[in-house]
C-alpha cells in the first residue's frame, strides 16, 4: 500500500520541488513584466508629450509621414501612433526579458534569436524611413525639372521614378529582414532588369532616327568649329 502511495506522491513531490525551484523565476518574470509595463507607459506618456511639445505632428504632416500612415488606414495622431509603437516594442522587449528570467532553454534560444533580429529590424525601419523621404525629394526634383523642361508627361515620369525607387527600397528592407531573400532578390532582378531592358528596347527601336539626328548635328557642329579654327588666324 505504501509503495503504491509512494508511486503517486513521488511525482507530486518532484513537481513540487521543481515548482519551488521555478517559483522565484516566475516571480522574477512577473515583477519584470509589471515593471516593464509601468516603464513602457511612462516612456510613452513622456514621449508623446515631448513630441507634441516639439510640434512633431505638424512636422509629420509637412514631411508626408502622416500621409504614409493614412495610406495604411491609420488615423491616429502621428505622435500618439509613434508612442503606441514604442510602447508595444517595450512590451515585447519586457516579455522577452521576462521569459528569459524563467531560465527555460527553449525559451532562452527563442529570446536570443529575437534579440539578434532587433538590429536587422531597426536597420530595415531606418532604410524605409530615409528611403521614403529621399524618394519624395527625388521624385519632386524630377517633377520640377521635367515641368520646367516642358515635358508633357512630367507627372507620369515623376510617379514612375517614385514607384521604382520605392520598389528598390522595399527590396532593400526585405533583404535586411531576411524575408525570403532569394525570392526577393530574384523578383527584384527580374522587375528591374525587365524595366531597363524594356526602356533600352523602346529607346533603341523608337529613337533610331532621333539618335541619328543628334549624331549628325554633333558631327556637323564639329566640322563648323574646325572650319572656324581654319579661318580664325586670317
Amino acid at each position, binding site marked *: 500500500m505504501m509503495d503504491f502511495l509512494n508511486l503517486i506522491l513521488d511525482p507530486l513531490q518532484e513537481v513540487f520541488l521543481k515548482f519551488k525551484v521555478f517559483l522565484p523565476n516566475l516571480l522574477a518574470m512577473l515583477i519584470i513584466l509589471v515593471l516593464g509595463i509601468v516603464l513602457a507607459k511612462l516612456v510613452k506618456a513622456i514621449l508623446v508629450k515631448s513630441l507634441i511639445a516639439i510640434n512633431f505632428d505638424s512636422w509629420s*504632416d509637412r514631411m*508626408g509621414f*502622416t500621409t504614409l500612415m493614412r495610406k495604411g*488606414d491609420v*488615423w491616429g495622431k502621428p505622435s500618439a501612433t509613434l508612442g503606441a509603437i514604442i510602447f508595444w516594442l517595450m512590451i515585447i522587449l519586457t516579455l522577452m526579458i521576462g521569459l528569459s528570467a524563467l531560465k527555460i532553454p527553449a525559451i532562452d534560444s527563442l529570446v536570443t534569436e529575437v534579440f539578434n533580429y532587433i538590429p536587422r529590424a531597426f536597420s530595415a525601419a531606418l532604410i524605409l524611413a530615409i528611403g521614403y523621404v529621399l524618394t519624395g525629394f527625388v521624385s519632386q526634383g524630377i517633377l520640377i525639372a521635367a515641368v520646367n523642361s516642358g515635358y508633357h508627361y512630367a507627372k507620369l515620369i515623376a510617379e514612375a521614378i517614385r514607384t521604382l525607387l520605392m520598389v528598390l527600397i522595399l527590396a532593400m528592407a526585405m533583404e535586411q529582414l531576411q524575408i525570403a531573400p532569394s525570392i526577393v532578390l530574384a523578383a527584384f532582378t527580374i522587375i528591374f532588369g525587365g524595366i531597363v531592358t524594356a526602356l533600352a528596347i523602346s529607346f533603341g527601336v523608337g529613337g533610331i532616327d532621333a539618335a541619328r539626328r543628334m549624331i549628325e548635328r554633333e558631327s556637323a557642329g564639329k566640322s563648323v568649329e574646325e572650319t572656324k579654327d581654319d579661318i580664325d588666324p586670317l
Partner: protein
Amino acid sequence: MSDFYQSGIITTLHQLGKPSLERIESELLGYVKTRPVALALPALYSEFEGPAMPGIVQELAKVKYLNEIVLVLDKASEKDFKRVREFMSPISTEVKIIHNDSKRINEIYETFARNGFNVGERGKGRSAWIAYGYILARARSDVIALHDCDIVTYSRELLARLCYPVVHPNLDYVFCKGYYSRVSSGLNGRVTRLLVTPLIKALEQLIGPHDFLAFLDSFRYPLSGEFCMITDLARVNRIPWDWGLEVGSLAEVHRNYSPRRVCQVDIAANYEHKHQILSADDASKGLMKMTVDICKSIFRTLASEGVVFSDGLFKSLLVSYLRQAEDTIIKYEADAAINGLKFDRHEEAMAVEAFTRAIAMATQVFMENPMTTPLIPNWNRVISAIPDIFEMLKMAVDEDNK
C-alpha cells in the same frame, strides 16, 4: 419676374417667358463635356427626416449633366450615415458623402487645427469649405454649384439655371448667384428685406459711393444660399464659417474678380425653406445671431477696403438704418397690398427694432475687436502648409464611402 431691367454693376439674368427646361438641360449636357460640374450639398441629417431632402433627391435623380455630387453630412451617427447612403442611391451621378462625424474626417479637422488653421465650428460655412476641398482634391470638375438642403419647393430647374451662366463657354461668368422671390401667403426673407438692403443704403448714405456697397446692392437676394462658381474661385476664396457666410463670400468674389464676370440668375418662381426664429431677446441665436454676424462681416470688409469707422459714424448709422428700414416697410406694405398678400406692419416694425439692436451689438463687438469675424483660410494657403492635405482628405472620404 417679368421685367428685364439690369440693375447694379453685375449682370442680372431674368426668367423671361417660360424657357424650356429640356433645352437648358440638353445644352448643359453638351457644355459639361469640357466643363464638368460638381454639386456640393451641405446637409444636416435632420433634413433627411424632413420633407425637403426626399424631394431634392427625387429631382436630382433626373439630372444627367452632373459629374459628381459631394454631400457633406453633419450631425449624423454611423447608422445615420449608412441610411443617407441608401437614401442617395436612386441618384445615378456619383455621390460622395463627407461624414463630418467620422473618425477619419475628425482627424482631418485635427490636422488643420494643429497646423494653425481655424476652420471654425460646425455649420454651412465649414461644410461648404470642406466640400470645395474634396472637389479640388479630386480635380474632376471645373465648376462647383451649391445649394441648401432645406428647400421644400426644389425643382431641378433651379440647378440648371444656376449652372448655365458659368458652364456656358461663351458667357464667361466665374460666379453666379441665384435669386428668387420669397412669397407664400405673405412676404418672407425678413433679413434681406429689412436688414441687408436698408443697411447698405444707410452705409452708402453715410460713407458715400463705394465699390463693395454698389456690388452688394446689385444683388437682388444677397443672402440666397444658392450659387455656382468656377473651381479656381473655391481655391482662392476665404469664407466665413458663421452666418456671415453669404455676405463674406460675396466680399471675396468682389475682391478677386471683376463685377463683369459676376451675375445673378432668377432660379425659381417661388422658394420655401426652413424659417429661423427672430429671437429678439437673445442675440446668440436665431435671426439676431444671423444679423450680428452679417453686420460684422460687412463692417470688416469695408474696413479692409479703407473705410474708417468711428463711434459717431456708428451712431449715425443706427439712425440712418432705422429711417431706411421704416421707408422699406412702407414700400413692402404697398407691394403686399396690391398682390393681396398678408402683411403685419407691427411685426415688421418689431423686426426692424430687433435688427437695430443687433446692429448696435455688432458695432460694439467690431469696435472692441475688428478682427473677430472668422474667415476660414483659402485652400491655396492650406496646401502650402500641408502639401498632402488633398491626398489625406481624398483617402478619408473614399475610405468612409467604401
